[in-house]
């Protein structure tokens, strides 16, 4: 009767890591990203939206994850005491992964668009719908973000990497 994209358990199995990674790209903190992951699926259960397709479900989850990561919901099981400081560098740098590190060093407003573009392979129009901004704003943010990444990685790698 219900397709798997309307089954919260199956969606959690399939998309929890993607939701986590989007939240991690925004927060740079494992605990925060896990909290956002929990919150997104809690909202899924509470809202019980009806999806037309798996793509629809994925888009919904990424949109809510983006909202939650920006507007970090506080949960009963949440451990964090202080809210995210939006313009501070992400609090927890990854042990490995220079590109991830560079993404986390971007101003907060660039992190989600660049993650959706690089990792989720979304188009500019899809990113615009996901984060609720115009396509022009998304293009501008992607352009600036990529320039910043290019500069940062050049500095770090001394010209070794191509962007």
């Amino acid at each position: 009767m219900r397709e798997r994209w309307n089954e919260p358990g199956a969606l959690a199995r399939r998309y929890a890591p993607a939701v986590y990674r989007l939240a991690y790209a925004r927060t740079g903190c494992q605990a925060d990203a896990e909290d956002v992951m929990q919150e997104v699926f809690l909202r899924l259960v509470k809202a019980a939206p009806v999806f037309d397709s798996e793509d629809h479900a994925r888009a919904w989850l990424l949109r809510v994850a983006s909202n939650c990561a920006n507007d970090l919901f506080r949960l009963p099981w949440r451990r964090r005491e202080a809210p995210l400081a939006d313009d501070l560098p992400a609090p927890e740098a990854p042990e490995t992964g220079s590109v991830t590190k560079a993404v986390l060093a971007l101003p907060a407003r660039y992190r989600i668009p660049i993650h959706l573009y690089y990792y989720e392979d979304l188009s500019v129009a899809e990113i615009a719908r996901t984060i609720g901004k115009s396509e022009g704003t998304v293009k501008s943010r992607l352009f600036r973000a990529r320039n910043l990444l290019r500069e940062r990685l050049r500095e770090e790698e001394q010209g070794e990497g191509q962007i």
Partner: protein
Amino acid sequence: MKDRYRHEMDLRRPRQEKLDELYEMMEGGTEMKHAKRLSGRAAAILVCAALAITAAAAAAVPAVWEKLWEQLGAFAPYAQTIDGAVCRDQGIEVQVLSALSDDLEARFYLAVRDMEGDRLNEYLTLEGRIENGKEQEAEPGRQTSGLSPLGMSSTRFDLLSYDPEGKTALFSTSIDFWKDAEPTRDAHLSLTGMTTQKGYLYGGASCASVTGRILESLPVEEQDQANQKIDHVSSLGYTEADLPGLKVVLAAEQNPMPMEGTEDMWISSMGFADDGRFHIRLGFAEGVAAGSDGDSLRGFFSDLFLSGSTDKRQYAHQITPVPGGLDILFPLIKLEDLELLQDCQARFYGDYTRPGTEVQGAWNIDFQLEYHPSVTLDWTGVLAGRQVRRVTVSPLSVTMYSNDVGGFHRAVLYAVKKDGSTVAAEPDTGSYSNINWETDGEPVWDTYNTWKFEAPVDLEELACLTLMDQTIPVH
């Protein structure tokens, strides 16, 4: 750069215990739901109405009412009994029995009764939606909690009990309003179908008994190879070269063992096959098939869970339909990984179909919701160092708007009654946002907290609220 970023991000995963917690919550787990749900909504008639169950209703489905009052517990006097919200189609009667509601959340209880046969059982699931509420506009300069486009309806119906004698199932469902929406008088339930054919598996088994012995294996037919499903093999950075060249499945019933949580499926064989890779063969009871809608693989997944390990090989698997079950191949777990399996749990999850009945129909019920409206306290001020700009309280819950930056969300709130007794309210979901986040300015925090009482509180008897040893006066 894109490829490097993808690769780096692929290595990032939430901690396994957090994933397990999430899966438990989503799939079996009613603990969280129960903890979050016993409150309701608004207004008027309630109080003793719930106790005034009509004799006719009680006589018709006494076990269901008994179960309902058991569920409501101390909240029963605050629940609304809904009269006449009943309809019948296909020989099945659906009745909205009760609601427990304030302007934070509405919980509804409904009964489904087979009037003509014995088509229902404890596997019954409902298709449809319950709707109530209207959006509230955010205060100027503030944000909603983000739920408004998504709320005001629910399609999730949780089976609370099934009474085989009365052939009646009791369900509950709820709608959250938070600060984005508010309840309305008009409520609507619309069901389009129900079935006992749908099962959801969340089973598991320990792999500790696996030995290095090669079990009897059978070749995979070409047509079955076409049906194989590969999950997270190439996406984990592995290629076809990492997969076994020999395509085999385990023969059935070599070392059978039950699967916890279900009698519909069991472990038929588990161990290493001729291909040198780890396999698990599941056996299905008659009439049982994996997946939904008759598709034998859709919506059915498996994993190995190695506690504390991020070894991504555990996530790769292929599923092959075999007579009376499925063979699951973990292509990246080889004979030399035997030791790793000693601490491993195999888990199987997803939809399956089972023998049962499906009934399509139209059950539409309009009814009036009565809820407990909250009141806004005539107090604002500084509480434990936070500026509080608004506090609302209902017999079921408390909400608070402040600039708290952490702390309130973990603190238990107490209602102190005029007789000196107290009622605790556990913190529930809330939100906080930096409403200045898109500028380079200082963060401006807009925080919304909620608490739900463990027992209802008569506002006439309320003397004050306390939070973090500070007092909020109630006049």
